[in-house]
């Protein structure tokens, strides 16, 4: 059974994992600097961050997936949707120390921009000092998939509705991933996203 850590409630900025097991960290619209330190063999951490930027919200978030022990896995996914004049500045570091061999680390940041005044800065950093590891990260920033929009419009769904459908699908996908690991998690997108006005 995985353990859920709600970072909005926890208020901790360094999470040191010392017991083997599966952990899930979740946060929403959170700014700050957070370190996830994996200090024992057999630790698996899934980190999920959800961002919805509207009006002039300004998020600055730094995360560090720090692998200190061998055979540890971390997997970070941050998805954001940004409207109006919102700003999002994300720096994510994966650091694998020399004796954290046989570790796997993943990081993905996906951002959808819905206004020309949005500013996104994304810095996915890697510092790898061990060799028997596998590590990958990815970052994509852009608008909604135009093909998908076209498809929905061709089904007589008007632009506004199509857009919000896609956005909810995009964000909902992350929430479902959390719920797969934490059955009691509220993955209803409506709890987080109200249509921007």
């Amino acid at each position: 059974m995985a353990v859920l850590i709600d970072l909005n409630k926890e208020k901790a900025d360094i999470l040191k994992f010392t017991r083997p097991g599966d952990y899930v960290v979740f946060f929403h619209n959170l700014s700050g600097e957070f370190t996830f330190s994996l200090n024992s063999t057999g630790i698996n951490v899934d980190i999920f961050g959800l961002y919805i930027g509207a009006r002039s919200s300004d998020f600055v978030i730094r995360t560090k997936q720090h692998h200190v022990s061998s055979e540890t896995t971390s997997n970070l996914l941050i998805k954001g949707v940004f409207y109006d004049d919102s700003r999002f500045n994300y720096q994510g570091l994966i650091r694998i120390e020399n004796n954290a061999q046989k570790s796997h680390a993943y990081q993905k940041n996906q951002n959808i921009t819905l206004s020309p005044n949005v500013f996104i800065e994304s810095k996915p950093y890697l510092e790898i000092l061990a060799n028997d590891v596998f590590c990958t990260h990815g970052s994509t920033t852009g608008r909604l998939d135009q093909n998908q929009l076209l498809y929905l419009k061709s089904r007589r769904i008007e632009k506004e509705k199509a857009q919000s459908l896609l956005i909810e699908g995009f964000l909902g996908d992350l929430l479902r991933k959390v719920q797969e690991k934490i059955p009691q998690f509220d993955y209803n997108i409506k709890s987080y996203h109200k249509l921007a006005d």
Partner: protein
Amino acid sequence: MNQPNLNFNYKYGFSMPQKYVFKAKKGLNEEVVAAISTMKKEPVWMTEFRLKAFGIFKEKNMPNWGADLSRINFNEIFYYIKPTNKQVNKWENLPKEIRETYDKIGIPEAEKKYLMGVSAQYESEVVYESVNKQLSKQGVIFCDMGMAVKKYPDIVKKYFGSVIPASDNKFAALNSSVWSGGSFVYVPKGIKVKLPLQAYFRINAEQFGQFERTLIIVEEGGYVHYVEGCTAPVYATDSLHAAVVEIIVKKGARVRYTTVQNWSKNVYNLVTKRSRVEEDGIMEWVDCNIGSQVTMKYPSCYLMGKRARGEVLSIAFSGKNQHQDAGAKMLHFAPDTSSRIISKSISKDGGRTSYRGLVQVRPGAKNSSVYVSCDALILDDRSRSDTYPDMKIKETDINVQHEATVEKLGEEKLFYLSSRGINKTESEGLLVNGFIDPVAKEIPLEYAIELNRLINLEMSGSVG
């Protein structure tokens, strides 16, 4: 001893009669800068340019990021040395590893000697002559930068320092004040230069100068491919190389700049390379870093015009005591622009490779697309690999994609190759060459072959 051929010098503008031997002096001040300009008999505007740049150099701070540059002592460096003193002029005086490498990668005797500055410049003279004949028919100019300042002042004045001003960074300022050597290439409208222009075609004993300055201008619709460097290790007694390369790609033009760098392992290689790309222009940097102790190099494209395209393909290999801190910068200023960065790096024996990249999509760069892919191989547990990409996006209707992977050579793949009778070292060499193949195949064939052989050598640990 190696005496410069007086006639030859006169012919190519190296007007330095033997009696005026510049006394090499360590350290840098206004006097030295002015003296350099005087020795070269430069026009006043260039002397002023140098002095101004020196002022900036004094003020500027060292970069507080990147590789460790703390061991550079500006006062211990010779800023102008007669070319013939710089090259090791006896084959036997070369360090053993360098000599062995030449042998192993099969460089013919004559070329070996040429690279060491030992041979008579006769051979290269002949090649240069014939290349130049073809080029001048098309109106293409290809010569030493020093000569261009005197022979083509109008063009040079217009563009020199326009892409990389002295104020850009400390090493650009240094180069701007003490530059010497480098290439000047001018391609007129609509002309496509078929033959790749090679740095060693231009006759200048300062082949491997410390502070080379290159300026390439390609007018509308033109095309040129410039190749610099060589895979054979270049032994340099000086340890600081701060070069500047400026490239102007006009509307619809295309430029490819290929570098294969294999400086000896005592060198700090700090290079500022940038290109300004106008509407429908294409700039391609192919950058290969194998040598030097420290390299900091980020070929850049400023995509100024609609539909401009930039591409950086890079390979970095770090062995013992090396740090390759390299990458790319793509700045999108105009709509419908696109860029692509492919980086392949390998670290071994305690080496460290760092990819450092900047992608900026500015307001107005609507409908731009960017794709960055960085893959790194770490071959043992003493080595290190970093990836530091930075994406700053302030526009919508764009698509920016970045992905990176760090891993070791696959066990299954090594076993597969082993099952075919290939031993471990050779298997690793084969896989590493396969890993860099997407970039290596863009390098002109003769360099690519040598590059493969060099990588195999580095892999087997038989190169110092």
